């Protein structure tokens, strides 16, 4: 294992893409875990903590595969704990603040639906490791959609206050949904190699599902020209939120490198 072993461009793009998948899950998992012990009721505290664990578990699988691709002695922990914000490739949506329960629910819903249709494609992709990780994850994601969409409907079509809060959450998060479907350089490359479909492909399905649930929740759908966001989280350009997440998540490994307990 030589640390500076050159890796060819195609492996490199697959490596970047694997990190992107992992980072999405790690950051959203971490965000959700911030609710642990603070959930509105005990049962929902556990429910959201379970989802956080599912997401971190999926992230670990992808990081382990990324370490295998990199083959320079990196481990899953290297990627999670020793990279800076500009090296993270997660979409901006998952790093947004928890806000109130409604915003957390909506963020989970918008992301889970995206993840569902994306993983349905990845499950059939030519990379066998990614195919098997996503196949296993799909069962978990199916439940995440069920759980979060019930809450979106319950709150959207609930009281005047819950409806107003969901409206507000929709307003805050809608500027980050377009990024999901704007391919990053590595997504274009691996789509070209036939490993994965272009993310534009899943946009229509995502929209259809999200629209159906929002309609039931008596909430307006996000308008097409909502995208005022010029950053690309996928390419390592992040909102300030990610820096705060990382400074907490990585503080132990940064202060005591290699520590175990």
């Amino acid at each position: 294992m030589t640390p500076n072993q050159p890796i060819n461009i195609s492996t490199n793009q697959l490596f970047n893409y694997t990190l992107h998948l992992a980072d999405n899950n790690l950051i959203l998992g971490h965000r959700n875990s911030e609710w642990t012990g603070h959930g509105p009721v005990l049962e929902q505290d556990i429910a959201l903590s379970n989802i956080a664990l599912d997401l971190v578990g999926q992230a670990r699988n992808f990081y382990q595969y990324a370490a295998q691709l990199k083959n320079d002695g990196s481990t899953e922990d290297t990627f999670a704990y020793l990279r800076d914000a500009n090296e993270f490739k997660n979409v901006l949506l998952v790093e947004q603040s928890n806000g109130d329960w409604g915003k957390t629910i909506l963020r989970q819903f918008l992301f889970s639906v995206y993840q569902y249709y994306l993983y349905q494609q990845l499950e059939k992709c030519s990379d066998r490791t990614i195919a098997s990780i996503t196949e296993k994850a799909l069962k978990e994601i199916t439940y995440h959609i069920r759980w979060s969409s019930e809450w979106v409907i319950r709150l959207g079509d609930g009281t005047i206050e819950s409806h107003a809060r969901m409206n507000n959450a929709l307003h805050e998060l809608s500027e980050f949904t377009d990024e999901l479907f704007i391919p990053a350089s590595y997504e274009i490359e691996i789509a070209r190699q036939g490993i994965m479909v272009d993310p534009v492909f899943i946009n229509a399905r995502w929209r259809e599902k999200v629209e159906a649930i929002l309609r039931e929740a008596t909430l307006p759908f996000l308008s097409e020209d909502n995208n005022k966001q010029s950053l690309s989280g996928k390419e390592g350009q992040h909102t300030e939120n990610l820096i705060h997440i990382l400074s907490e998540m990585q503080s132990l490994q940064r202060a005591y490198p290699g520590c175990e307990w």
Partner: protein
Amino acid sequence: MNLLKKFYYGDLPEQKASANDPSLTGEGREGAAAWPLWEIFIRSKQGLDHKHVGSLHATDAQMAMENARDVYTRRQEGVSIWVVESRHVHASNPDDAESFYDPANDKVYRHPTFYDLPDELKHM
């Protein structure tokens, strides 16, 4: 003596307890205390019967089902869930214990151990 009174499922005076007991009205509990209580029954992979595993709060049957999944099956405990709203469970009164159960104490003849079984009958 009254302090030691044990409540059984179905006769827990929920409304009264939540209004008066400060331990139940902590932060965030107001919402859940207003939600009805549900009894949860889980059937394990091996078992044929659903066993009572505990209770939880939920606004409706669907939420009770999802909460039960998240609270009681996260360690592979089950393959089937029943939820029953607690108010539909009618429990016997512990004060009736003497008249309900003691009379059976001296009626051993109710056990099927006094019959001579024919030799042809196996596996009994």
